């Protein structure tokens, strides 16, 4: 795919203006030349996400894990921005906007699922759902058609589209790391129509840990550090290969 357009990008904050040489691995222990990682603790507020029988609630556990992952990524020299740091529930677009504001960002959305083999972790990249065409029947069935574009720019709703291949690569590289740390996890990333990725105008990966059904929350909190390591290594590998899709 050709270099994606970046219509959603606004003036990036000063700390992220440096662009990496595309074919060169980022130097260690500095944020220069490294993407800003927008870490999204999914759900929040009235959206609890998955709930386990032992009382584990996805929105709370995922925030706790995100904080540990953030600390570990920062220790490794990445700049990290959290989509939420409390029990708020920013909209999908508000979360995406945090990544879209940077010129060179990677969006990582953290989840804990209801099902799956406990202890396994999956990385997902977005397989965009086709927007609904405005047909008479669709209209009769209350199917919304896409919002019109004001300026000919690709629609916000389809912001992920130009980045899908880049997202796929990063997701595969992260999944390869996850497979080493969390046995039983798949070797390659999974495509899925993840709503939280659709508005992101940057490489985006959703990561789901299985699951809220584990007997104790300890195994989930213990996953945070190896999870951070897998994310960092996956991102570093994608930068080394020059494959993040950033311009």
């Amino acid at each position, binding site marked *: 795919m050709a270099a994606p357009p970046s219509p959603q990008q606004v003036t990036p904050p000063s700390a992220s203006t440096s662009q990496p040489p595309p074919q060169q691995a980022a130097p260690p222990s500095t944020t220069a030349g490294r993407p800003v990682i927008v870490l999204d603790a*999914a*759900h929040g507020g009235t*959206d*609890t*996400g*998955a*709930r386990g029988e032992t009382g584990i609630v*996805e929105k709370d556990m995922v925030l706790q894990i995100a904080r540990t992952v953030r600390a570990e990524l920062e220790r490794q020299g990445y700049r990290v921005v959290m989509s939420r740091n409390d029990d708020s529930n920013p909209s*999908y677009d508000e979360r995406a906007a945090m990544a879209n504001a940077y010129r060179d960002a990677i969006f990582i959305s953290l*989840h*804990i*699922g*209801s*099902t*799956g*083999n406990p202890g396994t972790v*999956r990385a*997902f990249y977005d*397989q*965009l*759902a*086709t*927007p*609904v065409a405005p*047909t008479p*029947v*669709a209209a009769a*069935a*209350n*199917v*919304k058609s896409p919002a019109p574009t004001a300026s000919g720019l690709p629609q916000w*709703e*389809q912001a992920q*589209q130009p980045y*899908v291949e880049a997202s796929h*690569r990063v997701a*595969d*590289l992260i999944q*390869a790391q996850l*497979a*080493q740390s969390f046995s039983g996890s*798949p*070797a*390659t*990333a*999974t*495509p*899925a*129509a*993840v*709503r*939280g990725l*659709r508005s992101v105008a940057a490489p985006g990966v*959703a990561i*789901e840990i*299985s*699951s809220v059904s584990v007997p104790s929350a300890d195994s989930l909190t213990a996953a945070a550090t190896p999870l951070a390591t897998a994310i960092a290594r996956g991102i570093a*590998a994608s930068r080394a290969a020059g494959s993040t899709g950033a311009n």
Partner: protein
Amino acid sequence: MPRNLKLALGLLAVAVLIGLISLREMHRRIARLGEMQASEERARHEVLAPPISTPTDVTVKARIFWAAGPDQLAPAEINLPLSADPVQRSRQLVRALLALPPTPAQRTMPADAVLLGFYILPDGTAVADFSDALAAETPSGIVSEQLTVNSLARTLESNVPALRRLKILIHGQEVETLAGNVDLSGFFDLHPPVQSPGTNATPSAPSTPGAGAAASPSGTPPVAALAPAKPPH
């Protein structure tokens, strides 16, 4: 021993005996309850959504995609009377998914969900309208929600060749997600089986390919059968 005490002890012994007997009976009932769960669900569906029969029904081996473990699907062939009319045929298949899982563990859609409507547009787009229970009772999670959508998409595409895309509505309305994660605002691509024997739309092998499959995935992960279409350019 006073007569009253004897009487009391006797009554107590009888009560304990009765208790033990009913306890055994209770255990037996609980055990039976589990076995009955699947058939009770079927019975409930007989009332909620009775079998659909049409004049063109022919009993065929339908490929139904049930859950095979917590995160994957496996097709099974069951004898099912299916209509020649694509809409009725689709409704019969959805009813099978809802009402006929061989075991509760193989269920992919909430037992309480009801198909309220099913339409097919001239371009092969299927619109499936479900009751609120589909959204309310599908466990929240990317894996779990995708499994639900996959089982529907794979089952329809394997048995109704006319279908090209699937749109899922909840109570007549478009919803943002199924249960907090999987996007229902667009269409899911359906890929009818290629006309060669033994082909199917789903990876049959579980995903344990060798490590390091980074650049180009050689195997498809178990829940990856879902393939929503990319927008045209």
